[in-house]
């Protein structure tokens, strides 16, 4: 009896350790493979980032960003060399042509994943980077291609960084730091740098988003005062350095004299001018599907106890939207709440 029990226990233990997919050995092997892959891809990204700043990465700089011990860094670099992705010279480590393509593929996966999290999962800007850092190493080529098509081949990630193309090329970001922008000329936010996190949090606190129009109102030695449709903000120059802006072009032109659906008073009507540019992906699709296309008339129909959500009259139907969604619908107001009350 006890021998049988012992035998079964041993078999169970063996299965636990050696099962092909879920066994401990298989898990450990998968974990090792993933760790090696993510380490070398992180190293490639680091070298690429330094090259963009016209510097060569070194073993020390690599150890600095990856947090690995020198011996581990050496192993990673040796692996990259064997693969033909980097060359180390006197000044440091440089990417080969194939290595650069590989690095850009990782960046592509990262930025597409950020786009996906922002568009489809509604994840706030502050959390995107961390989540994408994990996902970028585990996406297959086909998965990345499918994601790209699903997202409609976006050109920029939610921060405004250009997304590398599948062939490993990338268009340059044409933007300057907000510090260098003249006072009084409208600028379009092209890119928000998400690292370091502390600075990025400051940017988010001011509620700044890519594709938003800003105006530098005052320029002081240590700070700037900027105006957006969300109000006036005081921004330190160190923070402004991480905000990149460009000229507002005619094709960016957002309708003037607009308000947001969320800001319409009870009973007021308006005409949809468009959807906010930072509303992308599924949420954009859903709003459009409800009939909130440019030129559509909407009327605020219902409020509730909490003031959120509210219901709107669109194309003969009543649709409830949360404030967050209603904020993404840009509106040209038509008549005042009083006028609406008097209507038959």
């Amino acid at each position, binding site marked *: 009896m006890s021998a049988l029990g012992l035998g079964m226990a041993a078999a169970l233990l063996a299965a636990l350790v050696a099962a092909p997919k879920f066994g401990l050995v298989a898990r450990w092997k998968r974990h090792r493979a993933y760790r090696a892959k993510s380490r070398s891809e992180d190293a490639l990204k680091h070298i690429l980032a330094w090259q963009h700043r016209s510097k060569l990465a070194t073993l020390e700089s690599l150890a600095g960003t990856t947090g690995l011990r020198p011996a581990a860094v050496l192993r990673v670099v040796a692996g990259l060399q064997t693969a033909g992705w980097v060359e180390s010279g006197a000044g440091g480590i440089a990417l080969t042509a194939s290595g650069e393509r590989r690095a850009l593929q990782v960046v592509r996966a990262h930025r597409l994943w950020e786009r996906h999290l922002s568009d489809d999962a509604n994840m706030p800007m502050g959390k995107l980077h961390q989540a994408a850092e994990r996902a970028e190493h585990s996406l297959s080529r086909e998965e990345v291609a499918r994601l790209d098509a699903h997202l409609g081949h976006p050109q920029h990630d939610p921060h405004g960084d250009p997304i590398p193309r599948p062939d490993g090329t990338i268009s340059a970001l044409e933007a300057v730091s907000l510090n260098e922008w003249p006072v009084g000329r409208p600028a379009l936010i092209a890119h928000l740098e998400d690292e370091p996190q502390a600075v990025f949090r400051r940017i988010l606190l001011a509620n700044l988003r890519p594709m938003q129009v800003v105006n530098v109102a005052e320029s002081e030695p240590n700070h700037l005062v900027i105006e957006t449709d969300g109000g006036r903000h005081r921004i330190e120059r160190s923070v402004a350095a991480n905000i990149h802006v460009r000229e507002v072009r005619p094709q960016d032109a957002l309708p003037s004299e607009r308000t947001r659906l969320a800001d319409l008073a009870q009973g007021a009507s308006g005409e949809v001018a468009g959807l906010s540019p930072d509303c992308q992906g599924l949420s954009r699709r859903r709003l459009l599907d*409800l009939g909130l296309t440019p030129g559509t008339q909407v009327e605020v129909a219902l409020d509730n106890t909490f003031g959120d959500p509210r219901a709107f009259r669109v194309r003969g139907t009543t649709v409830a939207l949360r404030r967050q969604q209603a904020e993404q619908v840009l509106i040209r107001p038509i008549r005042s709440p009083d006028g609406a009350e008097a209507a038959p």
Partner: protein
Amino acid sequence: MNTEACDGCPAHAQLAEMGVDIANCDHVVALAGNPNTGKSSVFNALTGLRQHVGNWTGKTVTRAEGAFGYGGKRYKLVDLPGTYSLLSASQDEEISRNFLLFGQPDCTVVVVDATALERNLNLVLQVLEITDRAVVCVNLMDEAKRKGIDVDVRSLSRDLGVPAVPTVARTKEGLAELVASVAGVASGETKTSPSRVAPPAEVREAIDGLVPLIRGMAPGLPSARWVALRLLDGDHKVREALLSGELAGLADRQRQPAPVDASKIKAIAGAQ
């Protein structure tokens, strides 16, 4: 695994795989429509079943099926989830869309609410992008009347290029005409020429650039234009169907009418 389809409906094998019991039916009819348009009333009135479906979005979470007879033929009616659109990624919309594309029903009835026609026509136009064989059922005509809304169903039918029938499903008004129209479309006697939205030049060029390739890959595929549009839109379900060969398979069935012996039909049910 005998999946032979019934007389005159080559694509029914696919329906069997989708869990539709196709035994003893001559034609398969899909029932689509916005939620809350009285779609279930139409379904119940046609099939005699009493399916209770409440008054809110996406309530029909499981697909209902029923049957009715007309002019000596048996019709299978498949109730699709109520959706406003076929373009978003919600589960309901995907079920409806996949059924229309891969199920290839002989006729699709789109139930619309006469009191909110503009909103409902959005779905009708999307359905007409996928299939030519459709009938529009303009339901809730009594409510429209009470609200002071007149719908000129004949002009609507002319504009859409498919039959449109005014009904009041609750009192079974107009259902005989609806069934007659469905029979006409399903048998091919009624020729339809659906109105399609003409895209601007650059989109048309992109579609024109893609359609020949799709035709080359899957000759005879119906709705190649729609597939091209969905591919351009990055629809990952259509992408997957393309890669897995499902789309090409669809085309093959279109070209090879299945054997006509209806006595051999054996449907595989429940394989949703």
